[in-house]
């Protein structure tokens, strides 16, 4: 069986993935970039072992092998899967009996997906955590942290503009000579929303929740920092992690990346679409960002908002910080990079206060956070 995913030919000797991969079938033999096969298990000597995921449901480890390559092992509650990959992830060998249950098949697909995404790095292709829609023959990606509302913003475009999903959770973005293309992939998120289509990527929108609509174009550095949080990077393998980060840098320069504050209403979708497609030259550049340093967490204890240092910061910081209600709101917004102008807009939308008072108070609070060395800027 041969599949064509994100412009990359995959050949499999296993009758796997029949349902989800069916629409990605390719009859052509030429230019296979990834092969999937199976083998009987044998002893493999591991050098180093890394625990990648350890959830309540399953664990995933990867081991570097003495004779070269990587061994991936997934363990669920009742069974597991093992795949051997060459150093460049072009050849994947599954040590597994044919999956007998839907659950074991899904586990194997998840593991194979993981390894295909590793190979994609070497094919100038990224896996972006985003909901991706097609509108007017061009793709727009809504990216951001889990729970921020990527899918609901994409759904608003579908309802208001007649856009169509390309991928609900994880499009592949291919870097081309002249721009980038977005592709549906057959191992999308749990909702399995995808289509086998390829469209020029028009824009990436980093979504933030807000009761107003505001679109700002990110600088290349801001875009890079935003995308690094949302792209797949195999950190256990420096030979693949480095090109993955290079791909992200290229993407951040090749495609406009915007920060989008908005709700999930149709008006916000229409306004954003109009700005992106009709008047992109009128979109202002985002101002410099700031955010709270890593290693501090906000807890509510007996009606008090307390910032607690964690890890190595406990000894270094030597205390905690008590925040007032409004300061806690601002601190939460500062968990992600945000400009002072955007912070002020968020405060004005949330609280009953005039602009001059809020702006002066925000200046003072940021000065306090700077003095406490909690703020990262620039």
């Amino acid at each position, binding site marked *: 069986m041969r599949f064509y995913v994100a412009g990359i030919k995959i050949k499999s000797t296993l009758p796997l993935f029949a349902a989800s991969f069916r629409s990605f079938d390719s009859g052509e033999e030429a230019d296979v970039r990834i092969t999937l096969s199976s083998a009987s298990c044998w002893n493999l000597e591991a050098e180093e072992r890394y625990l990648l995921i350890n959830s309540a449901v399953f664990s995933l480890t990867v081991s570097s092998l003495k004779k070269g390559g990587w061994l991936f092992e997934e363990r669920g509650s009742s069974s597991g899967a093992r795949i051997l990959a060459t150093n460049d992830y072009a050849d994947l060998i599954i040590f597994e009996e044919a999956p007998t249950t839907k659950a074991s098949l899904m586990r194997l697909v998840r593991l194979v997906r993981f390894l295909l995404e590793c190979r994609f790095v070497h094919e100038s292709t990224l896996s972006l955590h985003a909901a991706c829609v097609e509108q007017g023959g061009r793709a727009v990606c809504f990216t951001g942290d889990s729970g921020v509302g990527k899918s609901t913003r994409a759904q608003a475009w579908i309802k208001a503009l007649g856009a169509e999903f390309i991928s609900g959770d994880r499009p592949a973005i291919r870097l081309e000579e002249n721009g980038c293309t977005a592709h549906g992939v057959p191992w999308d998120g749990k909702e399995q929303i995808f289509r086998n289509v390829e469209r020029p990527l028009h824009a990436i929108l980093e979504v933030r929740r807000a009761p107003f609509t505001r679109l700002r174009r990110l600088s290349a550095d801001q875009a890079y920092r935003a995308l690094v949080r949302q792209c797949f990077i195999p950190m256990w393998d420096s030979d693949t992690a480095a090109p993955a980060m290079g791909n992200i840098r290229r993407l951040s320069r090749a495609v406009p990346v915007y920060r989008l504050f908005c709700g999930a209403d149709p008006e916000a979708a229409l306004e954003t679409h109009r700005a992106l497609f009709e008047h992109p030259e009128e979109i202002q550049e985002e101002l410099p960002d700031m955010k709270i340093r890593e290693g501090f967490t906000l807890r509510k*204890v*007996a009606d008090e908002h307390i910032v607690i240092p964690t890890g190595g910061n406990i000894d270094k910081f030597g205390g*905690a910080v*008590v925040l007032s209600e409004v300061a806690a*709101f601002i601190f939460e917004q500062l968990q992600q990079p945000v400009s002072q102008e955007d912070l002020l807009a968020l405060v004005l939308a949330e609280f009953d206060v005039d602009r001059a*008072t*809020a702006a002066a108070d925000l200046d003072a609070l940021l000065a306090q956070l700077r003095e406490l060395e909690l703020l990262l800027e620039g």
Partner: protein
Amino acid sequence: MKKAYMKPEAKKIDFHYNAVIAQSGCTIESQHSTGSVGQCTCTIDPIYNYKP
């Protein structure tokens, strides 16, 4: 409807029992508040930096 506004402020405090509770996730506040910290089930040393 917008929320009532009060001036945003940040004030640093030394570690004391409240901070220990927040750090460990412990909710047995009364045991700390009364000073009987030895009974706390926090995962970190309950007398760590304790300043009554």
